[in-house]
């Protein structure tokens, strides 16, 4: 795993003594439906007893990659901007004119960056009936198929968005409310989509021998 990303890693010792969930020693980070959001909800509450399959499977102290940082910063900024807007409106009757547009763009960043992170960890929602088959051969092939198709789709969307951005640049389209060139908004999304394609392939490669 990349060493550089370790610099980002926050040393988190999270537990929730209140819910008592950690006492149950739950949550093996098994591949699955649950992992998509549920384990994230309380993997954090679980304690050290987690078997370490591979670095990709650890959610608890998983390193902060570019896409994690982007998605987290985006959601935090969305909160701050919206809250500031509510407070300002009641205190001074002014509201931040650009808050909606910027929030929507931050949400797009959140989705595209988060999609890349989920692709890397194979956490997108799926029907697992066959995917978790007992037969190792079938399971391996299906995982391969998932990785390939995810990479393919994300690459296609990335290319189409780049093409869109080029068109927007050529026609000098502007976002009316923000007065910025539209391709400024489209291009980052295209690049994040490309990053997602790369992460899907790389995550699949890291998980290749694991059953």
């Amino acid at each position, binding site marked *: 795993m990349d060493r550089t990303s370790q610099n980002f890693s926050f040393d988190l010792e999270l537990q929730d003594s209140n819910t008592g969930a950690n006492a149950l020693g739950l*949550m093996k980070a098994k591949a699955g*439906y*649950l992992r998509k959001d549920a384990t994230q909800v309380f993997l954090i509450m679980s304690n050290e007893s987690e078997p370490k399959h591979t670095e990709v499977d650890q959610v608890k102290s998983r390193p902060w990659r570019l896409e994690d940082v982007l998605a987290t910063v985006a959601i935090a900024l969305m909160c701050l901007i919206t809250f500031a807007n509510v407070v300002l409106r009641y205190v001074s009757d002014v509201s931040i004119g650009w808050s909606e547009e910027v929030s*929507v763009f931050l949400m797009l960043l*959140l989705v595209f*960056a988060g999609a890349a992170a989920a692709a890397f960890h194979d956490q*997108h929602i799926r029907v697992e009936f066959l995917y978790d088959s007992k037969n190792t051969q079938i399971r391996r092939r299906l995982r391969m198929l998932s990785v390939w198709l995810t990479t393919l789709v994300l690459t296609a969307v990335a290319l189409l968005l780049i*093409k869109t951005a080029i068109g927007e640049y050529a026609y000098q389209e502007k976002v009316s409310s923000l007065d910025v060139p539209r391709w400024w908004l489209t291009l980052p999304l295209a690049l994040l989509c490309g990053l997602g394609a790369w992460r899907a392939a790389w995550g699949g490669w890291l998980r290749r021998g694991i059953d």
Partner: protein
Amino acid sequence: MMAGLVLFGLFILCMALGVPVAVALATAGMATLMLTNAGQPWFGLLPAAQNAVASISSYPLMALPMFVLVGAIFDRSGIARRLVDFAIACVGRGPGMLPLVAIAVAMVLGGISGSAVANAAAVGGVMIAAMSRAGYPPPFSASIVGAAAATDILIPPSIAFVVYSVSVPNASVPALFAAGMIPGLLAGLALIIPAVLISRIKGFGLEESSMPRPPFWPSLREAIWGLVAPVVILGGMRMGWFTPTEAAVVAVFYGLFVGMFIHRTMTFRQLPEIFREAALSSAVIMTVMSLASIFALSVNTIGLADPLIEGIKNFGLSSFETLCIVMLLLLLVGMILDGVSIFLVFLPLLVPMMKAFGWDPVWFGVLLTMAIAIGGFTPPMAVNLLVACRMAGISMESTIPWVGWLVLAFSVATFSVMVVPELALWLPRILKY
């Protein structure tokens, strides 16, 4: 017709093979578009990518990640445990009381969080251990928690309603929120009946009677922060203080304040992890929304809805019979597919059908949400129940003897909303949404 077969055939094949739902939707949609637009530059796929961005560029949709974040924060704010103590202080101890408390607390939390999974995690974290100490079998407790959490997406705020509202423009989020209230309470009450009856008949929780009952006033004082939250969120929206999105953000700050300074169950160092978790969970849901728009684009491009509706009308089914079939179909699909995906796959077909039969969009949204709420705790693919089973350390199969009764109760509540649309439509009309 050929293109329609490719579209749905490819989608079902991909889904069966375990390809992520979002990718399956995009693969099927893009392949169909390429077939139908073969002559055009870039196979006519450019609108597909633009749709994928445009479909999630909506300000009201921002309520979704915000309410996911609210769920993640309230999960750790220590509010659930205090609500449980207070509820026990109210209803007392005895067989069947803890299941009742679990359902009631899930409903109050439903007034704060918009996601059933977060609800199951918060309630399950407290109730499953408490119920097994009192002598309830873990499969029974897990079934109760999983089913009770399903009321969350009916009781406002609700992520499901936000998604529905984005796809169905003439059903506004506030109207849907108001419409979900009574059906949500009804479903919760319907769950209490089998929960209490089964406990009484089977003699579960006999040890409970000898357990201490928390004192009323001190537990009220502890629980007050949690009890006030739904009032602030729902009342604030009702009074026009803030939009649903802003209500979610206010709830985020309220939850952080209570968790960090009042109950002291969270620290600043945990915040990055909590925010990342919420960001990734909502990104996963919204990726499906984004790529589903490619699927919807090809459904519209090949004009699939009209012949289908024509066919149903020629078949001579009445409006109510069609609705029954739609609901049964969604219940079946809900057993294997998660709620948001169901909305996104079927709404391109269901919305024209709704218009053709003149169904009220708000009422229809409530019915669909009730169907997917049931899917949330019907094995084999049941997210809420899965969370509860993980916490109880049991397999999902072991819950089957109990969960069936709860599915039945929830279905009865759903059927009454089908027969009496006023149950959903009365409140939004009174509130003038």
